[in-house]
């Protein structure tokens, strides 16, 4: 395949929860490749463990 025929598109989203980037390659209006890379930033946690008083 002649790579010059491919249209390259890329994007990015960053918010409190994640940094996500993606790359796409299109050929004649058809999506032929899409990859994504997600970096998680907001991690669920449990806080507040307690012990009881007598």
């Amino acid at each position: 395949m002649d790579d010059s025929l491919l249209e390259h598109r890329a994007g990015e989203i960053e918010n409190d929860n994640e940094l996500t980037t993606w790359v796409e390659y299109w050929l004649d209006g058809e999506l032929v490749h899409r990859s994504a890379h997600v970096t998680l930033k907001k991690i669920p946690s449990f806080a507040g463990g307690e012990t009881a008083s007598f």
Partner: protein
Amino acid sequence: MANTQSMVTSFLSELMLGQHQLGSSTIVSRGSLTAPTTDTVKAALYLASATINAATTAYSATNEVSGAGYTAGGVTVTNATAPTSTNASATAGVGYWTPSASIIYTSVTLTTSFDCVLIYNSTQSNKAISVHTFTAQTITAGTLTLTMPASTTTTALLRLATT
């Protein structure tokens, strides 16, 4: 010196290591009773239309993504670093754990949008561990990489904290 009421910090990581059994429980054998093997942790992707949340108790194939290159159940999580804990004060500390490598789905095609990964224990009857969401994605003949945060008391993938 003074005594301070608290849940000890080491208990937090010991929970993740399965070192306490405060009630009767049925588990899948980990081999040795005194030196049990580490469970296998897996990561499954779910459609944006699914309902995976804190009430999820185990992996299910319902509303899991499907497509070329993706195997139901997802991929095995690299786990080369055991949970640990760090004490912060007489009353507070954090137990934490993070997979030791990115979670990668290589050469897949997932055309229905997905926005969630379920981390679960495939050794112990697929019991759910945690749910992580992100902006809905599709993959076409490509790779999805989920990069793990740094494994610290404030950023680790799983954290149990006393305050």
